[in-house]
Each structure stands twice: as structure tokens, then as C-alpha cells.
């Protein structure tokens, strides 16, 4: 395993850990609605990225594998945390996954 691979795994690992711990370290002002706004900001960028990936060629990568995980993860949140707008996010993500398969 070369050095760049080590760095890449470390970078992905740190990124993953950051998403897990950031809101736990945030101050009292942090709340789930604010976090939801982050999600909604990411969605358009995610769609644009998906389109870019689609244009690169084979689409059966990344999002078809990742989106169900994200959608189900959000379903966990919806089920447990009683936030009213998250179901809309879930259906958008599911729609993206289905669209990726449709255009495949």
C-alpha cells in the first residue's frame, strides 16, 4: 500500500468522523433544524455532482450504492427524532437513486 492510499483512507476516515462528531461538539445553539438546513444545502450540490458522474460514463457507482444507505439512515432519523420536513428529503434522495438507475 503506497503513501497516497494511506492518506486517502485517512482523509475519508477523518471526513466521516467529522460528520459524526461535529454536531456533538457544537454549542447549545446547534439544533436539528439547523442541521437539516445543511442537508438541504447539500442536496442541490449532490444532484449536480450526480449529473457530473452520470456524464462520466457508467452510472452504477457511488450514488446507487450510497443513496439507499443515506435514505434509510434518514428514515432512522425521521422515525426517531420527529422532525417534520425530513420525509421530503428522503423521497428526494430515493428519487435520485431511482433516476440514476433509470438513466443508466
Amino acid at each position, binding site marked *: 500500500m503506497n503513501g497516497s492510499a494511506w492518506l486517502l483512507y485517512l482523509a475519508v*476516515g477523518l471526513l466521516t468522523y467529522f460528520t459524526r*462528531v461535529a454536531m*456533538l461538539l457544537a454549542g447549545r445553539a446547534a439544533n436539528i433544524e439547523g442541521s437539516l438546513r445543511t442537508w438541504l444545502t447539500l442536496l442541490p450540490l449532490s444532484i449536480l455532482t450526480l449529473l457530473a458522474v452520470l456524464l462520466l460514463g457508467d452510472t452504477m457507482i457511488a450514488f446507487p*450504492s450510497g443513496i439507499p444507505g443515506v435514505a434509510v439512515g434518514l428514515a432512522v432519523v425521521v422515525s426517531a427524532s420527529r422532525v417534520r420536513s425530513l420525509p421530503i428529503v428522503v423521497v428526494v434522495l430515493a428519487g435520485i437513486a*431511482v433516476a440514476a438507475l433509470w438513466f443508466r
Partner: protein
Amino acid sequence: MPNATSGSPRSSALIAGVRESGLLALGVFAYAPAVGILSREAGLSAGAVVVMTVAITSGTAQLVALQLLARHEPLWLVLWLTFVVNARHFVMAASLRPHLEKAGLGARLLTGWALSDESYALAFPHVQRQDVDLCGYLWGSAGLVYLAFYGGVLFGWWAAAGIPAWAARMAGLLFPFLLVALIARQVGGRADLWTVGVAGASGAVLVAARLGIEWLAPAVLVANTVATLGLLRWEPRAFSREEEG
């Protein structure tokens, strides 16, 4: 706390987390080989698989990263898409944040490590009942779940050549179904039921696509849309669950 008998609240919660995550760990061990198999196909050595799995400890993120790496996609794309699929953690952590007011910095850092979809789903009913030390419970649950995940990934890498391709694909699809099964017991209303249905349908679409049943994808999309519009039209309060309680 369920069946807490002795010791500090945190250690009792840790034991409860381990105990209640046993069946979940079995499920995790069932789908984790998909990551190992994909790692083998991507040409990763055993050492590289260990480093990657321990550093990331996220099946979804690893599946995404491995597929992109196998395609020699640029680094920015790998990092960006990994970030996107992990961003759900922001919401999960935010929902736990009010319950960690008394936790110290070290406890929060360790709880961040323990924040997985599976352990979160198990822990949240306890959070709502406030009958358990959240940090201890998550540490215990995630400790066992992650051990099962690491073992499953390594097993998948080791046995990759002997596992049929269809079985490997089905193992990868176990993840959504496992979580759907986990949250099914928490379903408490139409919005919950609908959300679980959408998530389950997404998994079904993937299965159908893998099996070559392409027509099911647009059918499910139409069904989801109709169900959503119908629910919003005739049950506009279904998504306003903050007002239900």
C-alpha cells in the same frame, strides 16, 4: 435502564448496549463481507483493508469510496461523495446533542466515533425514555457492532474468491433491509410508515435493477410520488408530527 443491576450508570448502560446489540451484530456481520469482497476486487491488500476499515468504519462510505477508487475517479470526487453520503450524521448527531449537555469533551469525541446508523436506531428509544446513559449505551452498542463489521469485512476479503457474485451483491443489499427492520419497531404513525416504505422501496429498486427487472424502477418512483402527493393532499398534518404528541 433495562435490567441495570450494579455499577455506575455509564458502565451499566455500556453493558446494556452490548447486550441489546447482539442480534444486530449478526446482521452487520452478514452484510459487511460485501465491503471486503469489493476491496479484494479493487486490489486492496489485507493490510490496506484493515487500515481503511478501521479508519473509516462506515459501510456506506467505504462502498462509495471503493467503487470510485476502482474507477480511478479524481480525489475531490471521492471526498465530496463520501462527505455527501455521510452528511446524514449531522442530523443524527444534532438530534442527540441536547442529551449530551453534561458529557465532557472526551465523552463526546468517543460518542462521535460510536455514532453509526445501527447503534443510533437502537439508542434513540432509550433517549426518548431517558432511561439510559446515552454515551455508555452507544459505546457498548457500537463496540460490538464495529467488531462484527471489522470481522465481516475481513471475512469477505479472505473468502472473496469462493463467494458467488450474486451472493456478494445480495449481501450489499442487506444493509438497507437491516435498517428498515430496525426502525420498523419504532414506526408510530403514517409518516413513519410512509418513510419506511420509501426506504424499503429504494432497496427493492436496487434488487430489481441487479436482477434485471428495470421496469420496476420507474414504477416505484411513480408509486412513491403518488403516495406522497396523496398523503400531503388528504393528510396534510401527517408530516407535522411535532404537533401530534
